[in-house]
C-alpha cells in the first residue's frame, strides 16, 4: 500500500535559522506533491505544489524540492520566524487520474523560538 512518511513529528529551531522538513513516500509515483500548513483548531491551508518534472519551487521564504528517484520532498523555510510555528503536512495525489485522491502524511510540528 502507499505510504507517506514525514520522519520528524516535531522540529524545534531558533528564529532566523532555516527549517527543513522531510517527506518520503513509497510504492507510488505521484505526478505532483503538495505542502500544507495547519494551525491549531484550523483546517490545513495550501502552501506549495511541485510537479514531478520540477526539481525545485520557491515562494517567498519557502522552498520545496522533489526528488522522484529518492521518492522524497524537502520543505525549507528560510529566516524562520515564531509566526512560522505550525504543523506542516505533505500530501500526494494517489489517484493516478484526474480525480482527487489526496493523501496526507502525519505532519511535522514546527516550533520556532525567539
Amino acid at each position: 500500500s502507499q505510504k507517506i512518511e514525514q520522519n520528524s513529528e516535531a522540529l524545534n529551531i531558533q528564529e532566523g535559522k532555516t527549517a527543513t522538513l522531510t517527506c518520503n513516500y513509497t510504492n507510488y509515483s505521484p505526478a505532483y506533491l503538495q505542502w500544507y500548513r495547519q494551525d491549531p483548531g484550523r483546517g490545513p491551508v495550501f502552501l506549495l505544489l511541485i510537479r514531478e518534472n520540477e526539481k525545485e519551487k520557491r515562494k517567498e521564504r519557502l522552498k520545496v524540492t522533489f526528488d522522484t528517484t529518492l521518492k522524497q520532498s524537502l520543505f525549507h523555510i528560510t529566516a524562520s520566524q515564531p509566526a512560522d510555528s505550525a504543523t506542516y503536512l505533505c500530501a500526494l495525489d494517489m489517484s493516478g487520474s484526474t480525480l482527487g485522491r489526496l493523501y496526507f502524511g502525519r505532519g511535522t510540528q514546527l516550533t520556532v523560538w525567539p
Partner: protein
Amino acid sequence: DTAVSQTPKYLVTQMGNDKSIKCEQNLGHDTMYWYKQDSKKFLKIMFSYNNKELIINETVPNRFSPKSPDKAHLNLHINSLELGDSAVYFCASSHTGTGVVAEAFFGQGTRLTVV
C-alpha cells in the same frame, strides 16, 4: 466569504445517537472530500465525491454515509455513534479535470465528541 464552510463547529453527543455534519463550498469545485483527523493529528481521507458521484470510500464503517445533493454540498451522516468516532472532521474541495493540478481548500473542521 467563507470558501468551504462546515456546520456545526462543535458537536457533543452520546453513544448510539445519529448525527449529521454539513458542508458547503462556494468555489465552484467539482470534487469534495471528507477527512478525519484523530487525536494524533493524522489526517485520513474518508470519502471523495466528484460531480456528486462517490469516488473513494476508504474502508470507512458503513455507519458513515456521505450525501451530495449537488456539487456544492457534501454532508456526512453518522449512525450509531461510537466513542472511537470522536475526532475532528474536515470537509475539503478542489477542482479536478484533465491536466488540472489543484490544491484542496479545507473547512474549519467539526470537532465531534462522543460521550
